Structure formats: C-alpha cells, structure tokens
C-alpha cells in the first residue's frame, strides 16, 4: 500500500507466517520470512505479542493462582482495558512486585482526580501496558494472557545483525495507538509509527505479525 503523507517508505509488505510458539527463535524467523525482501535501509517490524510468545511468555490463565490483592485490584476499571482479569493482574504483580503495583494504583487514583490518564503504567512500569489480557491476541493464543516481550532492544539489534535491515518491535492497538518498544534506528521512529497506525499486523484472519517497510529508492 502506498503511504500517502510521507514518502520515506515506498511500500509496506505484511508477511503471513505460521503460528509462532516458544519453540521458534524470533531472530531466525525474522530472517527466514523476510529473505529476499528486506535489505539495508528497510525496516522489519514485529508485533510485540509474537516476540513474547517465542520467549515463552504466553500463559494459560488456569495455571495462575490469583491472590487476594489481584482479585481486588482487577475490580477497578480505567486501566485502559487490560489487566481486567485477576490472573492478568497477578502476572503483573509477579512482573514488577507488589509495592510497585500498589504505588501504581495510588498514582492512578491521584491521576483520576487530576483527570490524567496512564499514571498507573507510568509508576508501575510501562511493560505492564503490553500485557495482553485474554482475547487480546490471535488464535490459538486468544485463551492466553501474553506478557510483554523481554529485552526488546537486544532482539532488534540481533535481527539487524542477522539481516542487515533495521528492526522494530511495536504494539499497535485497535485505537490506532502505536508504541515502539524496541528500534535499531530511533531516527525512523516517527515514520514507522505513521506506517503502522492502521495495524498491518492485522487480526487473526490476517496472520501477518511481520511487516517489511520498503525504503524509497528515490530518497537518500
């Protein structure tokens, strides 16, 4: 698809993959699926959830035993829709520890009074915003809770080493909000955000967790 507003990329190529699991190596997969397509200057974009899945961070809620605090805190809405179930909240507590979760909740309460959103994640940890609660992800992981990817910057650096192309790990939500979680060349961030805004990673019928942004040949 041609990108209207900015010509730094001449095309955006989503690649249909198999369903990733923790037996896949994400760097190897990025290399295999973009072979002959992505070269120096191009950008390989990965959906954050599949990076996390290959790292074994898809968790079946039945295997999590939510404690009292997780049950209690998950009753409060306004955390942007995620962490709504007790097991997801329990996993958040496991990730950053109970004190930071409680501080985050306190910050969220103050934020609410001041009509500021997002203070929970600001204090409790940005990575918690990348926890996809049940049904937030594609088949066959819609029954799982998916934690955010581990060491995203290291992963994108390894992909660049393996392919020669730039690499990005991004989270795109239904409201067209794009978060760049890891990027090899930060100068490209604004362009990548624009190119991913309408979520080319698609839903589960369009299973394309890898997207290559082709750099225009006419420029630089």
């Amino acid at each position, binding site marked *: *698809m041609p990108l209207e507003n900015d010509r730094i990329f001449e095309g955006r190529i989503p690649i249909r993959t198999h369903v990733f699991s923790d037996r896949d190596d994400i760097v190897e997969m990025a290399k295999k*699926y973009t072979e002959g*397509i992505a070269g120096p200057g191009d950008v390989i974009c990965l959906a954050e959830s599949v990076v996390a899945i290959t790292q074994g961070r898809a968790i079946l809620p039945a295997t999590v035993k939510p404690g009292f605090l997780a049950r209690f805190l998950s009753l409060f809405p306004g955390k942007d829709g995620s962490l*709504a179930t007790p097991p997801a909240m329990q996993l958040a507590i496991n990730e950053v520890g109970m004190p930071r979760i409680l501080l985050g909740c306190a910050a969220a309460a103050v934020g609410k009074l001041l009509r500021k959103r997002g203070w929970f994640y600001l204090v409790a940890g940005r990575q918690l915003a990348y926890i996809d609660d049940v049904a937030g992800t594609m088949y066959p992981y819609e*029954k799982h809770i998916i934690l955010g990817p581990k060491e995203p910057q290291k992963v994108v650096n390894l992909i660049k080493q393996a392919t020669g192309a730039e690499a990005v790990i991004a989270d795109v939500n239904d409201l067209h909000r794009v978060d760049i979680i890891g990027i090899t060349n930060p100068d490209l961030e604004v362009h990548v955000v624009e190119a991913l805004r309408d979520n080319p990673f698609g839903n*589960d019928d*369009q299973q394309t967790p890898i997207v290559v942004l082709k750099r225009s040949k006419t420029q630089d």
Partner: protein
Amino acid sequence: MSNGLARITNWYCRLTEEGGQTFSEVVIESTSPFPYRIERPGPGTLVLVAEALANAHPDTIIVDDGLVDEVSLTIPRTGEVEAQVKLEADVVWEHRTQNSLPFKTILRFERSILTKIFSHKTIVIDPGHGGADFGYRGPVSLREKQVTLKMATVLNEILRSFGAETFLTRQQDVSLSWQERLNLARQKKAEVFISLHTHWAPDAKINGAAVFYNPIMPQSEGLAREILARITRKGKVTGRGIAPSWSLTELGRIAGLIIEPATISNWVEEGLFRSPDFHRKIAYGIAVGLEKYFAQQEGASYAS
C-alpha cells in the same frame, strides 16, 4: 529488489462491492508481478499456479464467507506456488492484477448466487435482554444485553449484504417482553427468527455454544444443527449441542432459534465476547448456516 522470481508474501479473502454487486476476492500479494495460469481441476475448485517463491507460510485459510469455503497455499516445488480456492458453488469469476507494493493478483468471484438465495427472505434478529433487564453477567462484569446487541448489529449488516430483508427487535438499550419479540417475527412474516443470548453456568469451567430450536417447525432442528456446526468451526468454541425450546412454539411455522455462541460465566469466553473479531465470526457462521438452509429449502421445493 531481488532480480530473481517474485516472492509471495501474503494472501487473504475479502468482500468488495462495485456497481451494486458484491464479490469475494482472493488476493495474493507479492514483491513483484509473476507469471501464472489458472486450472479448474473439478467443480467448485480453482487453482492458480504461480511461478514465484513463497515467503508466506503455506497453509489453509478457512474463509466460509458463504461463497468461498477455503483457500490453501502449497509449494509443489521450488519456484512454483499453488493457490487452491474451494467454492460452495460454481460462479462467474475473473482475474486481474493491481500494480502496487505489494503487487496484488486477484481472483474475483461474483456473489449474486447468494443474493438470489436470500432475496425475499425475511429474518428477524432479536438481541436478548435490554434496558432494565441486564441478562447474565460475566466474572469481569460484561453484561449479556450489551453483547447480544453488538452481535445482532454485526449479523444484521452481514445478512443485508447477503441480500436478506432483516428486522431487529431492538437497536437500543430498551426492554422488550418475549411476547413483543415474537410478535415482530409474526408481523413481518419472517422465515427465520433468531434470538441471541449468552449461556451462563454456576460452574465457571463450563464453556461452549448451544442452539435451541422451535420444535413444532420440523426444519428448525436441521437449521440449528447447521448453525451450531458453523459457529463452533468459525468461532473455535466447543459445541454443547442443540435442543428444542418450548418458548419458541408460538412462532408456529417460523423457524425460530435461540443461539448462545459461548458461555459468559467462563471468563475466557467472556473475553471472547468482548472481541469484535469473535462477533464477526459468529455472525458469519449464522449467515452461512442460513444460506445452506435456504438453499436446501429451495432444492426441496423444486423437487416436489
């Protein structure tokens, strides 16, 4: 880019509209144009053989859009890729390409056969509960009355695109009696009445879909079975079975169904009920089930 063969990167099926007609399109995306030929090995099957490499993972997409059943990609040997399209019926088709990046090779199938099946068919869709009647509540506080309205809205759009005449018992958060809901179906002389609900069970482990039918309308049972099969396949939920419901007998000769696509008290399925993707899949499952039913009815009346 690469000096060799084109690389196929993605493929999918979509619905499009042009000049008041609707089409199912199988789109194959690639890095550049590739030579291809089209074969027809048998009725309802069409194969596009491409001289290209596949970066896309070869597998099968279950489309089930009422016309295209599924599309499979295979690699018979290096440098050759086959896209096989399985259709519910042999229809008028054409192929075209679109010069963009990615390059698109498109197989286009005319859907007028569907509009023929659904024309003059009246379907009343009833989003369960509403207003002061909240229906069941999921463990993360999703309300049945909200889910049923969302699913009904999607189902309504899809059935209209198939060419059916549809009526909703409610389009807003208002309360209606069961009697008022059934009355609309009788008033409109509907062929089918579909009431959407969610299952609820005290045991949070219970999950799955069920369909209830009007026992005094004999064909209702087959329709219920067809729809349950479609929604479990498409929505990937387990089937809890079909059963007669005496609350539907007042409909007389109208095929009446109460559909529970999943169980709201199971919080994994409550999560599914929040997903627009799930609503769409369930709606397609119901619509394609209806298509099979109407096609059979016509077949039966031609035969007699």
